[in-house]
């Protein structure tokens, strides 16, 4: 009897965890992301210093009351630069995802809906894009067309579009044989209306986590590109560029690496947690219930 009781109590915990995990995950993620957005909002109106102001007398100063996060090798205030870097990170990830989504929708919905040769052609196209290692494609594109922010955004958008196309295509194929879609087809509703109004809203549960993950991955890519010197143009700040600059001061000025890395990881982790939360809550855990 005793061990049965023990089993009972763990079971309770088990279910509680499943049901709460999604919410906890979402809330934690939202807090992390919210913090980064708060920093971004503040940076629009106020930064302690001009983030691009160099100061020869304050090179590589450790954090102090004057410079809360210290200064970098050009005497610039790290806190101010972190604040203004959030702008770039948020802009690139969101704009890139918007482009990827539009392209992915154009490809995925139509391919899934019409099928046949058209579908095969679209899948061939997106598979071909996916065959290029993503970061490589983005790097080469930026190297070839110049490393302006817009080029970075477009390159990343194209690189990420096949993943959305896939999610949407699979979803569309699964749904397009549902009876409510057959109904719409019988009523001769315009195919694009069927795709956007009838099908798309039902794919949101699959699409939203993909979008959030996409945001996180895009941020990873963007920071990697900046780190390799092919992203943001100086003197503008981005986390990847700040980390790249800080590389040589790892041992002597760790604050240069700690704070931007912290913000970057916070942003990405926040997005992951949110997507995990959304996923758990929409898929209802998948195991217990």
């Amino acid at each position: 009897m005793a061990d049965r009781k023990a089993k009972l109590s763990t079971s309770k915990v088990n279910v509680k965890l499943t049901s709460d995990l999604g919410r906890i995950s979402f809330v934690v993620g939202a807090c992390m992301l919210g913090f980064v957005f708060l920093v971004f909002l503040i940076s629009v109106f106020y930064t302690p210093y001009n983030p691009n102001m160099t100061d020869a007398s304050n090179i590589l100063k450790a954090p102090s009351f004057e410079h809360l996060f210290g200064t970098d090798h050009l005497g610039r205030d790290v806190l101010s630069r972190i604040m203004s870097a959030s702008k770039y990170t948020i802009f690139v990830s969101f704009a890139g995802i918007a482009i990827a989504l539009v392209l992915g929708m154009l490809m995925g919905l139509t391919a899934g809906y019409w099928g046949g040769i058209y579908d095969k052609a679209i899948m061939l196209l997106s598979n071909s894009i996916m065959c290029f290692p993503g970061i490589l494609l983005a790097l080469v594109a930026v190297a070839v067309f110049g490393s302006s922010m817009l080029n970075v955004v477009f390159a990343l958008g194209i690189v990420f579009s096949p993943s959305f196309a896939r999610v949407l295509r699979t979803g569309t194929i699964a749904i397009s044989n549902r009876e409510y879609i057959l109904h719409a087809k019988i009523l001769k509703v315009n195919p694009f209306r069927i795709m956007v109004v009838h099908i798309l809203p039902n794919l949101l549960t699959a699409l939203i986590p993909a979008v959030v993950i996409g945001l996180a991955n895009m941020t990873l890519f963007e920071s990697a590109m900046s780190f390799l010197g092919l992203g943001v143009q100086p003197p503008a700040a981005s986390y990847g560029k700040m980390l790249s600059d800080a590389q040589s001061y790892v041992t002597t000025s760790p604050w240069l690496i700690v704070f931007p890395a912290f913000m970057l990881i916070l942003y990405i982790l926040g997005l992951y947690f949110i997507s995990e939360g959304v996923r758990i809550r929409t898929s209802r855990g998948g195991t217990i219930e």
Partner: protein
Amino acid sequence: MNKSSSKSVNIIEIKDFSLCFPSKTEGMKPVLNKLNLSIKRGSIFGVTGNSGCGKTMTAMSIASLLPKEASIQGGDILFNGQSLLSMDPHSRRLLLGDKIGVIFQEPMSALDPLMRIEAALGEVLISHGVKDKNEIRSKIMEMLKVVGFKNPDAILNRYPHQLSGGQRQRILIAGAALLKPSLLICDEPTSALDTVTTISILELLRSMSISMGITMLFISHDLNVVGCFCDYVAVMKDGAIIEKGITSRVLRSPQTPYTLSLLRKSRLDNVLSNDFFLKPNYSETPLLEVSNMSSGYDGRLFSRQKHANVIHDISFKMYPKEVLGVIGGSGCGKTTLAKTICGLLTPTAGTMLLNDVIIGVVFQDPASCLNPSHNILWHLLEPLKAKKIKLSKLETRELLIATMKEVNLKPSYLLRYPHQLSGGQRQRVAIAMCLILKPKLIIADEPFSSLDASSAANVLSLLSSINHKYNTAILLISHNLHIVSKVASRVMVMDSGTIVESGQLSEVFASPSSQAAKDLLEAERKLNSNPNALS
């Protein structure tokens, strides 16, 4: 295991057995509540009840296949007089397959897709200590013959996906019976199969029970199946047995009101009368004329499927007000016919003349007949938008309310989402969506098969009233001969893509000329008779 206990009359005795599941809202939710049950050696024991009554959990408790989070609150289960609950898990697991066999409902997914039949069945023997390869093979061959495969060699090397549903269920039965268990637990083994196959599986099980002396615990929600197959039956409600006894006694003269209501719901007789639907006038111009039509999934540019005609050379006419029944086993091409008529598929040959008729369609599955992302209002407006019918706000409002009333739904439901409605309500919304365009013809593809009997009855009476009020013709596609026989004036029997027989209902049902029709009617007859009718 001692000899005296093995000779006991009851192979299974469940004593005051209680089982709980943790739940989000209530803490521990009881699933079985002081259950008492005993099964006589050699008998076929049926357990029935609505879903959630605990019949499956009873079976799983005996087979010790309960989900991890289930917690046993008290009582005991004796198998051959031996307490199962006090056994160690390993020997309990070994008991499975050897002394207790189990088969499940889903023949499509209950076999490992990566394993050939020989390996899947051989595994049972290996795990119970049979090592000799030849012995394994001969045992499997023998058993495959027992379950009715005429050519077992060919089956051995197949993968599950290469078999039909009925064949897979036979393989599962073979697997469960390989070690000649003394108890076979069947958890809804036929509910995914069509009538003809169901009857053949039931016949197989019964013959095995007799020839091998296997006791069977048969779980089913279908009173007809239980009625024609089981010797004894127990009716469960809320985790307890409320009535049990010899099947014919329980089903003919139930002692509890609950059993009675179950029985009532299982039959539609009470809502059906003979003048339920209108009689057509065959001299009028047909609504729909189909001649020599073939259709299927062709290899056109914008289609996913490969070229294949599913239906061939179909010809028939439909007249106004007529209710035309289409019957046939699964895979006979009924649904393809419906899809072709409503324009989802283009005929590859022949002609289809629709005399300027608006068609409404009601599909089988209430779970997917409505778009979960939109509310009912949107669903009802969508046909108007698609047909570009412009109405003033007031007109629209009145039309919507009238339509909702027509299908017996409160206008306040307009703002609900599909998941807030029951299956029957959803099916009625689907009908409302047809109705709003005032169709002359409604194609109903298996509209009842996913509904419980009372909802089905409601939908049926709704269709009837539409038929009366608007003189709408109905093409009713169903495998349920019982319903078709009550409502249709004419029937068509389909088999492997063609119409093998058609004519007035009474003629076809009284003297079927085609083999397909005969099989269907024979299966239906057996299902609705007493246990002795089987084999």
